């Protein structure tokens, strides 16, 4: 499946700058989620946006969703060195049957230069 493909694959910016990552998906969704993964560690849930929402904020994070283009973006404002991580979008495999597994993209590896 090519659901949830992020770009760019890698992004390196200076501390204090904003970082924008994009995600595209192919099938209909009822929500889209963004996760962060520090090197070799577990996945941390950042934010969930539902299909009837266009924008959502959480602290320094801003997520948009365009269902007509089947795309989402994650903006991290005023980046910090601690934001260095891989960021993934994920969508439920909506089968309507219950506990949907998530389909993850390949991720964007974000490096914040001090």
């Amino acid at each position, binding site marked *: 499946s090519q659901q949830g493909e992020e770009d760019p694959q890698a992004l390196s910016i200076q501390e204090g700058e904003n970082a924008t990552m994009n995600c595209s998906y192919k099938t209909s969704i009822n*929500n889209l*989620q963004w*996760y962060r993964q520090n090197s*070799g*560690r*577990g*996945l*941390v*849930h950042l934010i*969930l946006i539902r299909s009837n929402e266009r924008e959502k904020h959480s602290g320094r994070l801003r997520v948009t969703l365009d269902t007509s283009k089947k795309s989402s973006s994650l903006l991290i404002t005023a980046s910090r060195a601690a934001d260095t991580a891989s960021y*993934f979008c*994920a969508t*439920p*495999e909506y*089968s309507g*049957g*219950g*506990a*949907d*597994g*998530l*389909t*993850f*993209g*390949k*991720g964007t590896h974000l490096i914040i230069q001090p």
Partner: protein
Amino acid sequence: EPEVTQTPSHQVTQMGQEVILRCVPISNHLYFYWYRQILGQKVEFLVSFYNNEISEKSEIFDDQFSVERPDGSNFTLKIRSTKLEDSAMYFCASTPGQETQYFGPGTRLLVL
């Protein structure tokens, strides 16, 4: 804040051996999941579990794999006869509903 926990953090095994990976989901959660991430690749869904039975499974989750909730707190993934290609990070996740999934720190499995 409650967390999903997983044991062991690392496991090394010989090809053909059975391994059991253990997870303790967050206590009031109802849905449980296993995922794997081969080094450098995407996180891949393996299986979901609800009401004491498998709800969904991916193509990866073949007869070599099984899951169990042996008691009220643990959720296990068993790989019956490990292959070299089973080497990966295995993540457990849980959710109270069907949206945000909370992931454990993972078990790194190395098959030699």
